[in-house]
């Protein structure tokens, strides 16, 4: 294991309110601020930023993506921990499925792959999954994402039961009945295009349901991929009342609107759908004022041929590990002069806290961090990306800043070239 001395970077770590220029050494995989006494490989990091590795709360592992390609893509985007939603292939609703995936991950991944189990059996919303056994097998959260139990009885009991194991529940707020025809936001763009609408209220009704249930039962919940202005308002009010609720939104809901769909490009088709500019602005506002705690990539690989069909028949989903940080930086920069401390919270500290993790850039800790060059822009080309999937809405777009090096579990797992 090579040792590295990272010299002159601005080190940001919200967990200890650290934000200063320091020399940092990764020796035998561990972090030290003591200057190395032997000649270790020195990397000039002046004008660069070092942050704790990014932590993602929503990614899907499905064809053509493999564990290996997903972890490579994530590492190149600054991630050192990714949470895999339970819907890819066989739903993770039994301990056997969890063990199998853990074994595969240990062999194929260079970063930490965490598993989210199903909240209900087969994510069908009809009966609870064995949450206790799932936790024992190693899941760190449960969810039926990208759907939600439609039956409120099941949902409430699930929250209540999961709380006994301190197992975070990640809710994808969606009323299916009122969004069943929806392939795009129910607004003027969908109306013009003649495609079915997925209204804001499909999300907002279930955000309200989550708030009410949490308040009544005294449980906590995390809402993922929030997309509408009304959801942001509901969450803000709930937080003011002290209800234990956290939420994330995605880079694409921060950067894009349903106008991106006007050419019927299925690579801009997402779940939930891209909405209007007022929603986009509300998400931005929510991220800056603490209403929205995290950014999740919502990385959802699709096969090329699956997307090359009629727009309404194409599956929803976009990949995001490689572009999330740059897209978020690009948007936050427009509003905040120095967005990096906020980014460290939104993309690392807050999600890790929700999962009960304690990563930090402190003396003696295992190195889970990355070096970022905020001034080195690049043009994204899906064909040169690490992900095996190509379904990105950012093809050919200039990206803000570059991840130069990522350390995961003490090892250097990615280097920019």
């Amino acid at each position, binding site marked *: 294991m090579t040792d590295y001395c990272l010299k002159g970077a601005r080190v940001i770590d919200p967990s200890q309110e650290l934000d200063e220029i320091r020399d940092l050494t990764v020796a035998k995989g561990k972090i030290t601020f003591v200057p190395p006494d032997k000649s270790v490989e020195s990397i000039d990091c002046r004008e660069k930023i070092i942050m704790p590795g990014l932590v993602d709360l929503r990614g899907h592992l499905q064809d053509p993506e493999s564990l290996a390609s997903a972890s490579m893509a994530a590492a190149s985007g600054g991630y050192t921990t990714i949470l895999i939603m339970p819907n890819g292939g066989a739903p993770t609703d039994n301990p056997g499925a969890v063990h199998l995936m853990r074994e595969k991950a240990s062999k194929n991944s260079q970063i930490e792959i965490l598993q989210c189990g199903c909240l209900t059996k087969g994510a069908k919303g009809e009966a609870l999954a064995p949450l206790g056994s799932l936790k024992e097998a190693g899941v760190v959260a449960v969810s039926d994402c990208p759907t939600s139990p439609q039956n409120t009885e099941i949902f409430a009991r699930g929250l209540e039961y999961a709380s006994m194991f301190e197992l975070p529940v990640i809710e994808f707020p969606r009323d299916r009945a009122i969004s069943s025809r929806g392939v795009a936001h129910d607004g003027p763009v969908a*109306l013009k*295009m003649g495609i079915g609408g997925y209204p804001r209220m499909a999300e907002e009704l279930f955000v309200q349901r989550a708030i009410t249930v949490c308040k009544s039962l005294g449980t906590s919940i995390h809402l993922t991929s929030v997309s509408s202005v009304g959801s942001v308002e509901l969450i803000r009010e709930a937080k003011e009342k002290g209800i234990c609720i956290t939420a994330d939104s995605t880079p694409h809901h921060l950067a894009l609107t349903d106008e991106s769909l006007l050419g019927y490009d299925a690579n801009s088709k997402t779940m939930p759908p891209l909405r209007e500019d007022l929603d986009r602005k509300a998400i931005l506002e929510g991220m800056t004022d603490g209403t929205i705690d995290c950014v999740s990539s919502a990385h959802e690989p699709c096969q090329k041929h699956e997307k090359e*069909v009629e727009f309404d028949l194409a599956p929803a989903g976009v990949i995001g590990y490689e572009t999330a940080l740059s897209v978020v930086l690009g948007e936050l920069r427009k509003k905040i002069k120095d967005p990096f401390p906020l980014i460290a919270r939104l993309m690392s500290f807050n999600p890790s806290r929700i999962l009960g993790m304690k990563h930090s850039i402190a003396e003696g800790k295992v190195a889970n961090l990355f070096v970022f060059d905020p001034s080195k822009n690049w043009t994204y080309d899906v064909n040169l990306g690490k992900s095996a999937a190509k379904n990105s809405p950012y093809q050919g777009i200039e990206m803000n800043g570059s991840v130069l090096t990522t350390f995961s579990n003490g090892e250097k797992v990615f280097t920019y070239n």
Partner: protein
Amino acid sequence: MEIKDWQRSSLLSLEELTAEEIECILCQAFKFKEELSNPRRQTDHLKGKRVVNLFLEPSTRTRIAFEIAAKSLSADVISISGKSSSLTKGETLKDTALNIQALGADLIVVRHSSPGSPLFLSRTIDVPIINAGDGAHEHPSQGLLDIFTLRENIGNLMGRKITILGDILFSRVARSNLWGLKKLGAEVTLAGPSTLVPRQFEEMGARVSHDLKESLADADAVMLLRIQHERQSSSHFPSLSEYTKMFGLNEARSKWLKPNALILHPGPINRGVEIDSELADSNRAVILDQVKNGIAVRMAILYLCAQNSGGLIKND
């Protein structure tokens, strides 16, 4: 705009056309309509051209009108319908299109239930595409023949008031008419039940009304649309009989119209649902004129688009 200035080889929507382009098609259609009345009835503008009618959703009027139009221009016409295509064997639209291209089609007329599929095809293959209706998105040739018929009967459309009544939400005909009529200066009111005529249509430049009487009062023409119960869920309105009761156009309600206001309908008509049988047969209804005009308008579309796909035989 002169015929020779026409630049497009595909016709995907009326939204993308300029007023000049619409005028150009109408002008050419008037010429073809005159030619059709002469006993020879056939020109050889598209001789040797292979026009493929790819109809992946049921259609009678549009498919036959495109066939007659293409044959009147001496094109070779091949018609493929949903059931006879390989799509039922699991072939994707992309592959079907690539095969039709490989088989030497010079122009494809496509009808599909998915909005945007003609655009998808035009990006996938190098053959001109004519949209003959894509889901609830657009039906440009229908919009043009409606405008053509209005022109014939009431002349210049600038400032004219046209009401489109019925199932607007699911209607590609309403959308194409809205774009086309607005571009020619008409004022368009979209009317019908609130669940089928959302207010957001105002952002496309329409006036929205849920009051039948008010929407008919000063219209120069009313265009009725069929209730597409096959596309709706039962939550859009209670029943066809309730629709007829609240929004059906009958003899009594036709008195709300101006005396010389026209009645149009793109068909198929549901007699006794959106329109009274007597009214459909009355002389203020121009429904069969629309069908007839559909041939000349589609000849104009095929002729103009083929003009830019190379090798058009000109006989001046």
